[in-house]
């Protein structure tokens, strides 16, 4: 990754120098080795880094950056490029205001998984090939990279970008996929309704309504969210009861159905580690079954199955007597 980082920095400097871009959105080094913050950089690129802890998807920042003068350089990992396309399809990003470099990704690290292995008091974290080397106040430890990746990296969408003006890639591409992304969805489908209800109650009851999932979600780009509107009576600052705990997430999942690219940011940022992406994946799987396989963000301008109309569309759910499949 060090080599890739060097190449990105060199290329970005050229793009700043020749006036192609006026700013860059990337990741900034933190106070520790693992707490990288998305940031907007000028030509000096002070504090810019790219490594295993740059998991944050930068696409959504382009909504606001599209509204300011000048062109923004954005760095897109392969999975981020799907969100980028989807935002373009929804006319939320001005393509002319963006210069996109597709960058290499060998899977991003999850500090929570590292901590779950009992690692405490981290002084430094270094990536050495397939291993992560941790120096802590309680001693040092080496863990396999493959054990501590973000959930989404175990079902990677692939190493190829679906958007980008140019690409900076490693010679040897690493595939981190180990599981079928619908594996857990299938497990949930196999449960009885009561078991499934129990599962989701257990997960969603931890929700604190911080709205991190919504605010990070590239598909949640409404100027004014219905849940922020005090005039409508639907605003909510807290989970006052179990109905809300359930319904907020279910409503949100419905709203992004067909537009969710499965970037996994919702689950990455959840302070309670609720596997929110499973709700989205259930919808993706249903859409795939009912309307044929569909990947949101695969290309710009695609018609989503739920926003398109075809005479032979399935009529699922409430009207199975009209020929719905389910």
């Amino acid at each position: 990754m060090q080599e890739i980082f060097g190449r990105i920095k060199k290329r970005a400097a050229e793009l700043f120098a020749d006036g192609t871009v006026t700013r860059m959105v990337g990741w900034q080094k933190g106070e520790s080795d693992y707490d990288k913050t998305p940031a907007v950089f000028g030509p000096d690129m002070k504090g810019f880094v790219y490594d295993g802890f740059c998991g944050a998807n930068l696409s959504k920042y382009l909504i606001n950056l599209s509204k300011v003068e000048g062109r923004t350089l954005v760095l897109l990992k392969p999975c981020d490029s799907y969100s980028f396309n989807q935002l373009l399809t929804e006319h939320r990003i001005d393509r002319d205001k963006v210069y996109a470099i597709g960058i290499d990704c060998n899977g991003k690290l999850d500090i929570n998984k590292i901590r779950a292995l009992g690692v405490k008091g981290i002084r430094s974290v270094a990536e050495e090939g397939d291993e992560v080397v941790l120096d802590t106040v309680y001693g040092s430890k080496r863990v396999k990279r493959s054990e501590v990746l973000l959930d989404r990296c175990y079902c990677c969408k692939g190493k190829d970008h679906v958007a980008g003006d140019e690409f900076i890639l490693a010679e040897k591409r690493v595939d981190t996929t180990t599981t079928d992304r619908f594996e857990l969805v299938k497990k949930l489908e196999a449960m009885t309704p009561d078991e499934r209800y129990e599962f989701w109650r257990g997960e969603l009851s931890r929700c604190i309504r911080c709205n991190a999932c919504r605010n990070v979600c590239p598909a949640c780009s409404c100027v004014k969210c219905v849940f922020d509107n005090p005039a409508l009576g639907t605003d909510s600052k807290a989970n006052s009861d179990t109905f809300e705990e359930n319904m907020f997430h279910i409503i949100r999942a419905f709203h992004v159905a067909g537009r969710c690219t499965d970037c996994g940011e919702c689950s990455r940022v959840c302070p309670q580690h609720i596997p929110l992406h499973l709700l989205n994946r259930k919808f993706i799987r249903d859409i795939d079954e009912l309307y044929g396989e569909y990947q949101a963000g695969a290309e710009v301008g695609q018609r989503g199955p739920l926003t398109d109309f075809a005479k032979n569309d399935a009529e699922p759910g409430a009207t199975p007597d009209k020929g719905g499949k389910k």
Partner: protein
Amino acid sequence: MMYKIRTERLPELFALAAADKALYLPVEQGGQVEFRPWSEGAAVRFDALNTVRSAKDLFFPQTENLVAFRTEGKKISIIENADTGAPFGLMGVRSCDAKSFEILDRVFLAEPADTYYKARRENGTVVTLACHEPEETCFCAALGIDAAESADGDAASWIRDGWFYLKPVTAKGEASVETVRPLLTECDGADDAAVEAEKKDIGAVIGQLPFSKLDLSRFRGENMLEIFNDPRWKELSAACLGCGTCTYVCPTCQCYDIKDFKTGDGIQRFRTWDSCMYSDFTKMSAGQPRLTQVERFRQRFMHKLVYYPMNNDGLYSCVGCGRCLRKCPISMNIVKVAKTLGGEQNDEQ
């Protein structure tokens, strides 16, 4: 007097204490540790340093009913349905969370006292627990808080070499310890030495933590305007998502909203946590006074580091628990803010 019990016998102690009054402890459920009421077989995690939500929940819950109104024809009746509960015990509270109660007290107990909060404070008996293995996100030392022995709470506790040591500090603490007294052994000189050794070990770890020497001295009243007008708030807040994670996991965040919920034949008035990060925070007829995320973000840190101490004898409204360091989706937090705006004395740390 200090007492002890083998750690493997703690479930007996919990059961006995819970028979007297509800007992809240750090309990793991669904992989996350939170303060939950003890029940037989609960996965008590005294080794988990921080719960996701802080212990403030017990005194200042995320939502609570205040009062209800019911209409029948032209008659409106008032229904008192606030739940301020019954006496309860709270064990496993870290020094940082215990200190947060003082910070909240200064807000809620100032006259006119918040009766809901006050009732819960009076109902609660707090047993603190020394931090056996502090982590790198801890910076309580920078706030003058001792992870090895809390100065707050009704009783203090330590765990070392398979023993749980318990020392009542207040009369309330004495009374609670009395309820589990049959299970406890009185400590002798060797036990005192073990607890002292534990404190010393904790102190040594604290000394090695990266943010223990964070210097907050620039954050004081006379620098208020200079800090407020600092252009760097813009870059610090640039990536802020405007979610409420930092405020909701923070032990000292105390802002709330009071709302009316239409029940069909009346109104349920409830209080709910609010977050200065939200677009409708303190919204008035003229709108929200802080129109951009830069202003909202600045408000949060100005409140913690400047306004609150100005009004409270220099006491910062932060206890260094590190929850915001671990939970912010974009890894922006009070340490980064303090280091950026806190003056050059922080550059080398």
